[in-house]
């Protein structure tokens, strides 16, 4: 370990400021009593929050986002759990290609995924709406979920499962009584983080929603009108607080019962 280095410490703190300050402007201006977002602040008000709550379209968009997010996170976490187990447990031919194929949606520009799903959806004669958005989100969340779950399952003592099978439990019993409790923190973390990814996702929704707006689509539509901005600020502030809470909860859960060594990010990147 190095000794002290104040220059680097100051630089690091400045970098933190660069990361955080822009995001903090949303909550600050959401309580400001003015239509423009400029300094000095004119006065404290909560009316933007009241105005936000009165919008019925917002309620609809919120409900749409929750539906899409719940389905996308449950399905992608389920699919990712099986895949993560395959990678953590077995060595097999075609391992790297399979891994690469599942990771692609996370790596290629999102707009290409969106366009590809749009083309096939329209060619099949289906209507745009929340269904193709959910499909896109499942595709997009699965690699994230898999990274989180692999980090959790890696180093898992699989002889525990074998012991359970030898003692006469069937496959489901073994999963339910042995594997699930051990994977559970990872599974919940994956569900929460996938939900957040889907809840905040914009590009796929932008191409595929048609007329059923999700929450990010709703915000996008409002951002064009300067007089509607204050209530978008209030909504943005609420979303930021909500997201932060869920993500911290997920991080905490993911590291539950993990040794210090493993308690990194749960995200394993290109080794």
């Amino acid at each position, binding site marked *: *370990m190095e000794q002290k280095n104040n220059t*680097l410490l100051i630089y690091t703190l400045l970098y933190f400021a660069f990361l955080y300050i822009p995001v903090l*402007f949303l909550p600050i201006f959401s309580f400001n009593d003015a239509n423009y977002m*400029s300094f000095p602040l004119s006065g404290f008000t909560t009316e933007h929050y009241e105005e936000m709550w009165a919008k019925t379209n917002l309620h609809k968009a919120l409900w749409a986002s929750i539906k899409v997010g719940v389905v996308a996170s449950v399905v992608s976490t389920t699919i990712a759990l099986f*895949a993560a187990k395959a990678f953590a447990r077995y*060595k097999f031919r075609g391992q790297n290609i399979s891994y690469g194929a599942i990771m692609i949606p996370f*790596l290629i520009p999102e707009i290409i995924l969106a366009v590809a799903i749009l083309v096939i959806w329209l060619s099949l004669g289906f209507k745009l709406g929340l269904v193709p958005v959910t499909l896109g989100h499942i595709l997009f969340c699965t690699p994230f979920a898999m990274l989180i779950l692999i980090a959790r399952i890696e180093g898992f003592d699989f002889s525990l499962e074998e012991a359970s099978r030898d003692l006469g439990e069937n496959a489901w019993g073994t999963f339910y009584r042995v594997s699930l409790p051990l994977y559970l923190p990872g599974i919940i973390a994956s569900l929460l983080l996938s939900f957040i990814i889907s809840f*905040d996702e914009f590009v796929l929704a932008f191409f595929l929603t048609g007329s059923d707006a999700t929450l990010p689509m709703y915000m996008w539509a409002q951002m064009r009108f300067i007089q509607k901005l204050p209530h978008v600020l209030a909504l943005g502030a609420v979303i930021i607080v909500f997201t932060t809470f869920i993500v911290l909860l997920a*991080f905490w859960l993911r590291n539950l019962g993990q040794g210090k060594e493993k308690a990194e990010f749960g995200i394993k990147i290109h080794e």
Partner: protein
Amino acid sequence: MLQVWKSFYARSDPAKAYSLLSPALILVTLAMLIPLGLMLSFSFFTQVSFTEIDYSFTVQRYIDFFQKNLLVSLLIKSVKISFIVTFVTLLTAYPVCYYIAFYVKKNKMLWLVLLTLPFWTSYLLRVFSWKIILGTKGVINSSLINAGLLSEPLTFLMYSETAVIITLTHAWAAFALLPLYVSLDKIDFSLIEAARDLGLSRLETFWKITLPLSLPGIIGAILIIFIPTVGDYVTPALLGGTDGRMLSNMIQAYFGKVNNLPLGAASATIMLITVAIVTMIVSYTTKKLTQRIS
């Protein structure tokens, strides 16, 4: 027969692995590979009228793409902006990761969670916050005017390439921070101490030991920042104006109001090929570099 299959299955790891993988592979095939294939075939069709598409094979859309100066210049600009963003993000994030890996002794985990936390808040909202900061009536301009330092707002801040680069650097920071930290943290500190004991200066140690050993993280960061930013849509659409427009904004237009699906599909395919070429160049260079080091 069933017994034979069961005993084969019980002994075969690949069979078990692939049955576990099948849902994910089916998903990727149905929701990505087949749609991408269809998108590719659309790039060989022709849009005859607003609703009608001629399905006979032609490479005319690709010729169209390279004959339209606008599209070619947007492709070049997208690649250029992505390169700048990747370079700036790496350069600014590296010292932070270095500090956390080698100087922070307690609660490293907390530092990292705090570094990646802003990344989880909505991308749209983060881009939007930069609009608040850089706008003509935004934070920077209004503060400078109120302080009497400016009489007119700085217009170059907003709706420009610079605005896009600043915003993307902020938005993709976590993608540089994670791989860089992981590779720096893996370095055995005794190697660095040994180099110093043998008389190398701090700078020499960094060039000869630390930097080469952190190369995997640097390469990982380059790829996971460059690839998605080439196709970024939100930032140029909200902050780019005409100066900061990128290729994805035109792709969106072809699938939207311009309604030329084949040309849109061809543009998306060209973007995908560009990304693939850059990925191959970066991976190839890494291979050569690591061979030379070891």
